[in-house]
């Protein structure tokens, strides 16, 4: 490939994403009625929303990490733990699980009449910061477990042996071997979880419980849907995007490490573990199992218990709708993400800073609140086309744009490494365009399948966009659950949640490679 700085064509692949954002902003700016009121930033409502957003994200992040560490350590030091492979699959499932499945499970377990709610005289309240934290920990701790475990696995066996030979104490082993192995990943992991919780919508929407537990994303939604106040929405989204972006930047994000590496290798440390420690590890492992499994089991039991009327048609319709939108969005997002990496890869070796810009452009939808794009688009298109008829294509496109950053994040390390190794060979052999495509295509196909599954699972969990565009008479599964759970028809919500859970599990199963990579 030519490495001319002046190459323009690669930048064209970023056009769809940039265009999408432009349309959104244009739509918002042109449709607003009120002028920008900067005094809004001094309104106690704004201040408390901002504070709460930061507080819940920070707490969620810290809790998730602190709780994940013992689990990762248990996995590392106890190779004989029962059902490890299933546990790993469970963590993958918990991480990508659509929020509403979890929320339904939590409501069954800990809602007002919940199975586990023993508060007396008053039941423990699921609504508020405590509910939000609980849900966030559930959704993010598994990712932290996987990353920390993988980090610990990367410690060479010699180090473990040496630590044993030198009779290092537990604390010494932690500070000399474990912590250094984990440290490089903690920053990015924490930043990532923070941003996920910061941008979280479904959880705060259902478990927040009122204005004092409002996050920026929810406030944007409310400004748009309740007040139709587009200026306020824009101001809020600027704040949200700036904070999310800064956090990722501050963590030194340059796309170096891949957090989502789907396969996790198992390598025993060979260390002997004391009886007391072994007991501790087993206990932690068991608790983690129970914690992750409970909401899922709750949903299953509630859905299948007799006395629940079977849903039938509405459920199937919602499933069909979800699949239609998710599959289409994933089909668009995966090739688009691949294409959008082109400029970043092109400049990687030679002009690193330009490459970084290209990568940020490809990823920028990760920090722009989804709702803002959604409403901007709504405002832009509502006067130009019939929104009700076009709701599905619009939803597909918007969902695809939201998925692209995940695709990019997954593909980039793989492709950059491949480029480094084979750039010169390609310069040597000078394949024509067709051959060039063939070479890369055959390389990437094994990765595309799990990637497609990941994109599909994420798309199934969509909520915010449907909240805006969806026809409430043709809901997706998540919206269907939302309406049922919201009106406390938990048994019906559980059925829909179970369906969603089954779909997600199937996709996870498809995603985790069951055989070693031939590379």
């Amino acid at each position, binding site marked *: 490939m030519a490495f001319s700085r002046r190459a323009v064509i690669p930048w064209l692949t970023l056009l769809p994403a940039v265009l999408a954002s432009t349309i959104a902003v244009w739509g918002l700016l042109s449709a607003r009625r009120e002028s920008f009121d900067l005094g809004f930033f001094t309104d106690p409502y704004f201040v408390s929303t901002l504070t709460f957003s930061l507080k819940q994200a920070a707490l969620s992040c810290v809790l998730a990490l602190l709780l994940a560490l013992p689990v990762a350590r248990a996995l590392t030091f106890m190779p004989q733990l029962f059902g490890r492979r299933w546990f790993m699959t469970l963590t993958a499932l918990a991480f990508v699980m659509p929020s509403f499945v979890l929320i339904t499970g939590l409501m069954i377990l800990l809602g007002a009449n919940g199975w586990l709610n023993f508060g007396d005289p008053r039941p423990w309240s699921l609504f508020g910061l405590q509910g939000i934290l609980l849900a966030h920990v559930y959704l993010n701790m598994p990712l932290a477990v996987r990353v920390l475990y993988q980090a610990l696995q990367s410690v060479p066996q010699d180090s473990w042996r040496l630590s044993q030979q030198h009779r290092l104490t537990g604390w010494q082993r932690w500070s000399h071997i474990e912590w250094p192995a984990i440290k490089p990943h903690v920053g990015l992991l924490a930043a990532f979880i923070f941003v996920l919780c910061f941008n979280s919508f479904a959880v705060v929407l259902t478990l927040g419980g009122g204005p004092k537990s409002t996050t920026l994303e929810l406030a944007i939604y409310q400004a748009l849907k309740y007040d139709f106040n587009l200026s306020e929405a824009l101001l809020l989204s600027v704040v949200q995007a700036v904070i999310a972006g800064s956090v990722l930047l501050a963590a030194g994000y340059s796309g170096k490490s891949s957090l989502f590496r789907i396969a996790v290798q198992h390598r025993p440390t060979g260390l002997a573990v004391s009886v007391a420690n072994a007991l501790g590890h087993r206990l932690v492992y068991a608790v983690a199992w129970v914690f992750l499994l409970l909401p899922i089991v709750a949903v299953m039991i509630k859905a299948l218990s007799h006395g629940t009327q079977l849903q039938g048609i509405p459920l199937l319709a919602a499933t069909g709708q979800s699949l239609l939108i998710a599959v289409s969005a994933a089909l668009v997002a995966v090739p688009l993400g691949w294409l959008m990496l082109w400029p970043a890869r092109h400049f990687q070796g030679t002009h690193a800073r330009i490459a970084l810009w290209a990568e940020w452009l490809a990823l920028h939808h990760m920090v722009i609140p989804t709702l803002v794009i959604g409403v901007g688009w709504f405002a832009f298109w509502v006067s130009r086309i019939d929104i009700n008829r076009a709701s599905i294509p619009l939803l597909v496109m918007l969902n695809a744009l939201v998925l692209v950053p995940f695709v990019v994040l997954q593909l980039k390390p793989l492709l950059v490494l491949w480029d480094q190794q084979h750039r010169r060979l390609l310069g040597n052999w000078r394949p024509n365009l067709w051959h060039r495509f063939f070479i890369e295509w055959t390389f990437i196909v094994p990765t595309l399948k799990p990637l497609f599954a990941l994109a599909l699972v994420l798309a199934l969990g969509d909520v915010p966009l449907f909240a805006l565009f969806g026809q409430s008479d043709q809901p997706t599964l998540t919206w269907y659950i939302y309406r049922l759970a*919201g009106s406390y028809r938990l048994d019906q919500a559980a059925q829909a949640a179970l369906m969603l859970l089954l779909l997600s599990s199937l996709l996870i199963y498809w995603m985790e490679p069951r055989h070693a990579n031939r590379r």
Partner: protein
Amino acid sequence: MISLRQLAWLSALIVPVSVAQTLTVYTYDSFVSEWGPGPQLETLFEAQCDCDLNFVGSADGVAMLNRLRLEGKKTQADVLLGLDNLILEQAKREQLVQPHGVDTSAVSAHLEWTDAEFVPFDYGYFAWVYDTTRITTPATSFESLIASDARIIYQDPRTSTPGFGLMVWINQLYPDSANHIWKGLAPLTETVSQGWWEGYSLFLNGGADYVLSYTTSPAYHILAESDQRYAAAPFSAGHIAQIEVAAISAQSQQPALASQFLSFLISPEAQAVIPTTNWMLPVIDGVALDPAFDGAAPERTLTVDPLQVLNEKTNWIRAWRSAVAQ
């Protein structure tokens, strides 16, 4: 051999082209749920109009209003059903409705209805509903509610007509110290729900001691569930009324059919359906009401100036928001 294209043209001629007219009615979700008035009214009306009634639900009345604003001129709505007396001025100001041309002389005299664009179809009074087995001495005012340290649920004034009604009620009773009341209620609040049904169902599941609802809500439990334990707490300072209304959308392509629907709404047969499905009081005289509804009219009612509401609502919402956010 007929080609596929010719077949397509032929079938278009053979199959009858006439399709029944569709009347699209925007309303709130609980109206069209299986236990709401929607299904029965649909059957009754479709029998007389030879048309197809299509309900489109939103979370609550105010949410419906917001949806209309967002849709603008492209809206498919013919009839807007579920706004109330407190927010209809807003709909008028935004030119979302057109005159209905319906004869409203049948509407009960005490409602003094003269609006040319909106037709009322039921009414009730806002009140805090509680479980008599959990609360033996109910609150009689907002202050005593705050002092009782009970758990309460109410709806978001930005999306829900009862929530909006609560906001108006508080500002009517405490024009200068509404903030104080909101702040007092804040620690008692279990959750602020988006729509009426979400909050109410949480209450029914034991989620709180009081829920903001209507004086007619207990009637549901008495009649439908033979359950006497729920009651509405009468406030000595008075309650405000919510009159639910319907109107023809300004963008409707079928104003005549829509007008026919509105007339139908205040007809005796439709009004007979309302009390035991929407659990609100009928707007015409002569509808037989079960004794369970006897307590539905409070001793003291307050009048509200709709124009004042329209002008102050933004400030009131901002004040509520700021007061409870801290």
